[in-house]
């Protein structure tokens, strides 16, 4: 844990952390020395030598003062160290978030990252003082006392030393067992809460089912499993703690019995024995307590492990000297790509001419959106090449791709700011009037008219005050403002009302002028007016391609798809009687 903390810290935080550790060790050793001085002091006291006792008391008090000073210093440095470490961890996290490839953000990372930024980092930063110090003290102070005991009676010291390896083995075994059961318990907890949430979400459907339904059984099974896992954790944890504490108590028993035997036999000074007993009973407490602190280290390690994972992620390769694209055409050459096991695209090849609109259609799961993500360089293909203007994308570099491409995806993110500022992000150099003009071309003006504060109306967290279609219009306006030569559009699949549908159509018309556009198309109008249509086959390849007229004339899969879609627009809900 310490190595990881040092690794993630700035030099200043590192120096503080090391100084803190040094003072923690000094405090623990001094405390052990104070305990040891108790032996000659008690000997002097019981033999009635008050002068010697007074000398020893002065020495003990001086050591205790040194110990208190070390403790105080450790705490002062520790405080500054934990703030410095917290600062380092959070700065490092922020810097890393900037560098990570976009692909990492494909799944929602906000919960995990927020947890790491708040609780995780805080816990890890305070762990050296709050947890590690107690564990170190739990071992170093008794260790010092044990070493010192050899000065007074080697037989008792040896007997106690013999129990140390046993304690160590049991401690290791305890930790391993708890880690295993803890993982199982955590899995069961995740399973249960997913089941309960699913149960809540599906409540309307479940109301129509009787009691004791399938869903009731699923949720009850999950509860039972978690209950069993928790009890299992308690049993192993309990058995482990019992054994560990038992061994510690056994060590004490050895001292009492052996000491009493030696004292009665006369080979051990009664005063020494009593003093050693005093050490013994006080000596075992911190060890027993430190057993329970292992969990704290585990929590801190989890947070540091997450940070390690972030740092271990490889960014995409970048060129030393980026090449210049000749135009804004896009070409796929034998591209194969998947998100894990099976490839979504297999040996896919096509060209999207510069300045033209290419529409992609095909069954769900056929990789339509994946094509746009490869153009935007969220990922690089496993095999094959994606070219922009004749240059392979890795030789252009992510920065050049990001500058050239304006993506309008389905999951549009809006900042909790005004509607105008959300468009303005597309190009902060423009004036307010220019921004409004561009936003009006994407029909965002209608949304602003509808809202009480017009252009200065706030859109809510993540844009929650706007509908999906409206958010997509804002996103198109950003793309217009950015004036990128390539626009990637993933049309909304959710049902749009007629007003939104027409507005989006107008916005797309405004965006396509003079730009290379790749559209994952669902609207009939978009599909039929495209300069080129690619119909994916659902097995990673292209079934048909051409213009709308050509494909209808060919009377193949596209023609069938088109007829079905057109028929669907005339559907009426009239029950067959």
């Amino acid at each position: 844990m310490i190595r990881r903390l040092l690794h993630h810290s700035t030099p200043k935080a590192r120096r503080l952390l090391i100084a803190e550790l040094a003072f923690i060790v000094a405090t623990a050793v001094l405390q052990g020395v104070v305990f040891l001085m108790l032996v000659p002091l008690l000997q002097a006291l019981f033999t009635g030598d008050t002068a010697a006792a007074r000398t020893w008391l002065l020495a003990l008090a001086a050591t205790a003062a040194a110990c208190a000073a070390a403790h105080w210093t450790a705490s002062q440095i520790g405080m500054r160290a934990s703030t410095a470490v917290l600062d380092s961890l959070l700065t490092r996290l922020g810097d890393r978030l900037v560098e990570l490839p976009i692909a990492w953000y494909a799944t929602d990372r906000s919960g995990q990252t927020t947890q790491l930024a708040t609780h995780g980092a805080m816990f890890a930063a305070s762990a050296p003082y709050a947890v590690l110090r107690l564990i170190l003290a739990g071992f170093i102070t008794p260790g010092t006392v044990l070493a010192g005991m050899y000065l007074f009676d080697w037989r008792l010291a040896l007997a106690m030393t013999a129990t140390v390896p046993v304690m160590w083995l049991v401690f290791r075994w305890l930790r391993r067992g708890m880690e295993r059961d803890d993982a199982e318990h955590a899995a069961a907890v995740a399973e249960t809460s997913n089941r309960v949430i699913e149960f809540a979400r599906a409540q309307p459907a479940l109301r129509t089912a009787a009691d004791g339904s399938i869903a009731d059984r699923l949720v009850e099974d999950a509860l039972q499993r978690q209950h069993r896992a928790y009890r299992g954790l308690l049993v192993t944890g309990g058995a482990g703690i019992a054994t560990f504490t038992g061994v510690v108590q056994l060590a004490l028993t050895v001292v009492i019995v052996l000491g009493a035997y030696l004292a009665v036999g006369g080979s051990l000074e009664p005063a020494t024995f009593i003093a050693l007993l005093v050490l013994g009973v006080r000596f075992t407490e911190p060890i027993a307590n430190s057993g329970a602190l292992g969990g704290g280290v585990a929590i801190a390690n989890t947070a540091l492990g997450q940070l390690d994972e972030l740092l271990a992620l490889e960014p995409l390769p970048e060129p030393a000297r980026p090449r210049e694209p000749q135009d804004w055409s896009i070409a796929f050459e034998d591209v194969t790509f998947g998100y894990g096991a099976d490839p979504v695209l297999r040996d896919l090849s096509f060209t999207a001419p510069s300045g033209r609109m290419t529409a992609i259609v095909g069954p769900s799961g056929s990789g339509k959106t994946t094509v746009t993500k490869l153009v935007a360089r969220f990922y690089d293909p496993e095999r094959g090449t994606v070219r922009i203007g004749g240059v392979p994308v890795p030789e252009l570099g992510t920065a050049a791709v990001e500058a050239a491409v304006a993506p309008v995806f389905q999951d549009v993110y809006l900042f909790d700011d005004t509607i105008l500022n959300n468009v303005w992000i597309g190009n902060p150099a423009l004036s307010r009037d220019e921004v409004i003009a561009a936003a009006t071309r994407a029909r965002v003006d209608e949304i602003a008219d509808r809202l009480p504060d017009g252009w200065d109306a706030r859109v809510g967290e993540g844009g929650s005050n706007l509908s999906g279609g409206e958010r997509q219009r804002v996103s198109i306006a950003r793309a217009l403002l950015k004036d990128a030569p390539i626009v990637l559009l993933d049309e909304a699949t959710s049902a749009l009302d007629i007003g939104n549908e027409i507005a989006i159509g107008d916005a797309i018309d405004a965006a396509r002028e003079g730009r290379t556009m790749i559209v994952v198309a669902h609207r009939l109008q978009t599909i039929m007016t495209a300069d080129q249509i690619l119909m994916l086959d659902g097995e990673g390849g292209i079934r048909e391609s051409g213009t709308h007229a050509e494909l209808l004339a060919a009377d193949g899969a596209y023609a069938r798809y088109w007829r079905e879609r057109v028929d669907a627009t005339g559907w009426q809900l009239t029950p067959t009687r």
Partner: protein
Amino acid sequence: MGTTSEQADAEGFFAPVRGSLAAIVALSVVGAVSSVVPFIAVVELARTLLPALDGEAVDTGRVWTIVVIAVIALFAGFGAAFASGAVSHFADAELQLSLRRRIIRHLQRLPLGWFDARSSGTVRKLVENDVTALHQLVAHTIQDVITAVAVPVIGLVYLFAVEWRIALAALLPLVVTIVLYAMMMRGGAEQYRRYDQATTRLSGATVEFVHGIAVVKRFGQLGRSHRRYREAMREYVDFIGQWTRDTALWFTAIEVATSPAVVLAWLLAVGLWLVEAGAAPIDVLPGVLLGLGLSGPLMKLGSSAQFLRNATKAQASLADFLALPPVPQPDSPQEPAGADVGLDRVAFSYDGEHRVLHDITATCRPGTVTALVGASGSGKSTLAKLVPRFYDATAGEVAIGGADVRDTASADLYRRVGFVFQDVQLLRASLRDNIRLTRPDAADEQIERAARAAQIHDRIMRFPRGYDSVVGEDANLSGGEAQRVTIARALLADPPVLVLDEATAFADPDSEAAIQYALSALAADRTVLVIAHRLHTVTGADQILVLDGGRIAERGTHAELLARQGRYARMWADYRANHARSLPEGARG
């Protein structure tokens, strides 16, 4: 907390563990008492052995008796403390299970309208965080409090009995701890509030940073989000730093004042002074031995205060959830006769102040389609949701088969009313179980027939495990496919009354036609109430209710309403004009 009902709830919470409470208390007391015995034994051992220093004989029998008592006490104390911990942890396990079951039971009884709002986050917090936060309260606090009180009390009683002056000296660190702790906690509540605020701001900045990163990267605005994150982070770190400095001063003062080294030096100094003043050295020993361990348990209690605070908060939020009123159930349920849906002067308000529906009266006959049309916000969705009792009417009556839905037993009601809305509700279970969710006894042929009619059978058979494929594991469905599974479910349930959102037909453009076939099959021979967004889909409806501002503005068939030249006729003309623009040539409209 404070009101009697909440207190009653709190008692109800802990009912499952009340039986274990006596055992926990008794074992904790035994543990605390026995933990003091070994120290007393050491003193007695010294008393017995020390005469040897002056060459006197030692009572060996007594030595061994004390040794045996000490060892027994050692293991008894540890055993009792361990048993108390075990009992309380197992009690906590039972409590968690019983609380989670109560949450489930309560979820089953809440009005369906509750689930419209963002309920997932609330439920996740309840089952994951709140129930676990109670752990500290049940599993640790009782034992901690008893130990923190019993150990010092027993120790001090013994010390006062032996030598009152050393007892007084031992009391001092305890007093210092309590006083300093009180000083440290001054303004604590305010600081915790500020801590929560700083944490919330940092969380918000992190969420925005992560969610918006794709946008800001594409538009070269990375600096903006990163700056906001850095500002929130700076504020957070500064606050934490300041707070740590303020409290650490006191905390370290307590730690140093009660550290074994300092207390030992203090007690020995007092002891030596007493011996010089004539006390027996042996009477000083107990003070040194026991005085060291008096404030330890108290410090442990202090450090668990944060957990305790969380547990109290969690208990309050659980109590709030369980206090949400469930759907009222009828005392003497009526049996509906037939499948007519009757709305009689229905009014509804979400908040009790602003009515969104006024004076709605209509009848829907079996075998007919009734369409609800109107602009968004006209109340058509709300009206439709009153029939399956997502909400209860504020005034008037919603009746099925002549019986008020509020007077109908839930089981009876949901046998008669089915609904298909836009949000798809599939469980992570096999496709077979998902389809037969509401009819667990359905035979495989019935399930397959429903799936065929819902246009999803062929898709299901393309999964390697067919109907045994588990949704979200080896069956990944598109939006339209998932929608058809829910239609198959409704077909199998075969309710005579069906409430339907027409927008489901457009959930997935790639399987639009298939969903439409499925919906047409589902709508056959039922009392259908449909929320219509696209007017052309309901031109064949038997009855169209035109809603405006929560009132029925017009009603009739498509032809009748057009002839009237009123609101509906205008809506239709607008719709036609827009629709024609959004459709390509060659498509019917």
